[in-house]
């Protein structure tokens, strides 16, 4: 059971280049999330998905697109990278249990460090 994995771990892009970050989970979680973490800003939600084939915007969605074609995968795309997108990106997943409970909490991947020059 690998939990949540992210690919790649590190990446350097030039301004205007595109790339896709891949998140995979093997816990059969319905919900998946993409966050970015910047110093002094904490974790900010970019996009999330409540199930296969669905996506929704989070707090800071501009400049990013996502897709959830398979339940276990959640892709984050940058079409035209900007230096402001230099950050550490975390993927997370959770069960969809509306009554709450500890099993409803989020499990995070190890992160992708992205630098845009």
């Amino acid at each position, binding site marked *: 059971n690998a939990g949540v994995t992210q690919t790649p771990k590190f990446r350097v892009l030039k301004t205007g280049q595109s790339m896709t970050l891949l998140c995979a989970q093997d816990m059969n979680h319905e919900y998946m999330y993409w966050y970015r973490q910047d110093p002094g800003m904490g974790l900010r939600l970019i996009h999330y998905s409540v199930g296969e084939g669905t996506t929704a915007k989070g707090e800071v969605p501009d400049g990013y697109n996502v897709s959830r074609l398979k339940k276990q995968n959640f892709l984050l795309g940058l079409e035209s990278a900007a230096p402001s997108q230099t950050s550490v990106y975390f993927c997370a997943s*959770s069960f969809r249990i509306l009554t*709450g409970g500890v099993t409803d*909490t989020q499990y995070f991947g190890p992160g992708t460090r992205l630098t845009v020059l």
Partner: protein
Amino acid sequence: QKEVEQDPGPLSVPEGAIVSLNCTYSNSAFQYFMWYRQYSRKGPELLMYTYSSGNKEDGRFTAQVDKSSKYISLFIRDSQPSDSATYLCAMKILTNTGNQFYFGTGTSLTVIP
């Protein structure tokens, strides 16, 4: 005003000290409260989870929630160098469409041997 406020620190204590980490929040609708620990260059991992006012203890860690004051705390007893990490508080609201999570900015803790 941010939904969740957390003092970023950094906080430096000697080994064996009691550590107190705190967060305040503004939304009384928050129902569930969590503490995550994040080691350098790693993803956050769940440390404590609680949904009611009062204390919850797990080994050397105690999570405290005061809903009337909108204030949560994490206490670490007999702190160890391995506790050196960033601690994130998080809160959750259950909605009709699912869960909304809100995170603090994290407090950096260093335990000096």
